[in-house]
């Protein structure tokens, strides 16, 4: 009996210790406010850490932006990781990340988390196929039918006589969410589609398979895959800005509550002229 009490006591102590430990974490929002006060006092010397997590579409852009920001403010460390847009929303909502990155608009159910949405760029969704695929373009309707499983063979689209290997993203993907909203409307993606957990993984799968088709961020297009023309329009930034290419979605940074301290400084940088110039290299600035 005595032992059980001793056991329980130490367990409670350790639990309390660990919980207390957690609150001292510098990259929490509370810690951020201290950093903000420090930042204001010391003029422009910002220090602290920022964690950005979420969309794999936004990830390369975040990496570019943070590189420049860290050069200006060497005492700030920014951690960037993927996981998908919904993971980013979740991480921002529960405080695991300071900034959640999402490549889609917020869903209805997510609006109650109290997140501030800051659009930092716009990006297109490309429909990618293997470079050797003779098909050059499709209509939006045809894309939808391929993804519902109505069209199953490339020859139905003027290509080879071969079954279409449909590749999609995991359900939490922002790219998938945007794709579903823009292309699928109310239909469901066929459950025969191979599921890959990131833009890079989809691109790799399509690049290694002559009969595959997949949707990826336009920023991820390279010479390993070919981006199809949709309704005759090529997936380029110019065409998106001109409103000709139909598939595009916002890149959003999500912050719980109002951005403060170094998080605010970073976001201000991203929205500044210098930051938007970096965006414009591969994506579309928010003007």
């Amino acid at each position, binding site marked *: 009996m005595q032992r059980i009490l001793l056991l329980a006591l130490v367990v409670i102590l350790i639990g309390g210790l660990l*919980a207390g430990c957690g609150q001292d974490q510098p990259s929490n929002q509370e810690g951020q406010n201290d950093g903000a006060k420090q930042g204001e006092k010391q003029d422009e010397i910002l220090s602290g850490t920022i*964690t950005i997590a979420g969309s794999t579409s936004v990830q390369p852009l975040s990496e570019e932006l943070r590189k420049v920001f860290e050069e200006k403010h060497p005492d700030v460390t920014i951690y960037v990781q993927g996981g998908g847009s919904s993971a980013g929303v979740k991480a921002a909502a529960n405080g695991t990340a300071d900034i959640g990155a999402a490549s889609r608009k917020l869903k209805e159910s997510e609006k109650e988390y109290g997140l501030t949405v800051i659009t930092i760029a716009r990006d297109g969704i490309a429909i990618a196929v293997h470079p050797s695929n003779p098909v050059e373009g499709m209509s939006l309707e045809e894309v939808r039918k391929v993804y519902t499983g109505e069209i199953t063979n490339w020859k139905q689209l003027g290509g080879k006589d071969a079954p279409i290997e449909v590749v999609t993203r995991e359900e939490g993907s922002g790219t998938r969410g945007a794709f579903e909203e823009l292309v699928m409307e109310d239909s469901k993606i066929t459950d025969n589609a191979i599921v890959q957990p990131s*833009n*890079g993984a989809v691109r790799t799968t399509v690049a290694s398979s002559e009969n595959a088709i997949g949707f990826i961020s336009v920023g991820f297009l390279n010479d390993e895959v070919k981006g199809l023309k949709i309704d005759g329009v090529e997936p380029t930034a110019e065409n998106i800005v001109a409103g000709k290419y139909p598939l595009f979605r916002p890149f959003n940074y999500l912050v719980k509550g109002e951005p403060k301290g170094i998080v605010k400084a970073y976001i201000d940088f991203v929205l500044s002229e210098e930051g938007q110039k970096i965006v414009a290299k591969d994506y579309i600035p928010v003007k």
Partner: protein
Amino acid sequence: MDKKLIEQKIAVFLLGACIAITFFLLIAVIGHILQKGLGQISVEFLLEEPRDMGREGGIFPTIVGTIYLVVISLIISVPIGVLSAIYLTEYTRKGPILKAIRFATESLAGIPSIIFGLFGFTFFVIFLKLGWSVLSGSLTLAFMMLPTIVRASEEAIKSVPDAYRLGSFALGATKWQTIRKVVLPTALPGIITGIILGIGRAVGETAPVILTMGSALRIPWTIMQPARTMSVHLYILASEGISMEKAYGTATVLIIVVIFINFLANFVMRKMISV
């Protein structure tokens, strides 16, 4: 020829084929990866920071991340594991408590790593607000390593001859003094073997580590910062198609580390038998 003898010869041949196939598989896997990856390994690869999300540069932060994770996990699991083993072998009589602890340790060993990841993510990262950090990862991994260390330590301590203990008591030492000065030093090689095997397991885990340590590609300076291990780096490089060359290189480093760990464990074990 006798039917029995024909059957005998065929049987031996097939059994030999089993071993041959097994070793063929071993060589196929290791050989393929080493062949494509050894060329990647250089001082720069090991000491440089990665650029362009890992497409170029080296894997230094992941090596640091791996070492950091292993060290902190050991700091947590070795004392608990060894002390548990001491209790189980030296201090209890058979009874319900012993059975319960043993059942618990065996159960821990059987829980799939993804459930540890599930638990670690929800409990350490989110609930205790430790965030993606070396600490979250180490706590999770420490409990995964615990059964291995407890088991190996138990075996080692059990195999210390009673004569040593009795001799020590005869000289007037207390139980704890005996354990500290006689039993533990003798059991040390076995315990170290267990620790080395535990390290091998920690280095190889991926899913629980991504969920609790995150995947940020930076050198972690404190245990509250996120980090990426080599296993996680390999997974991300491979699944996202960032760079197959770097993936092969990372896999090669992992294999070399594992071979080294195995070799070390065997070496220490052989030393134990000779003692």
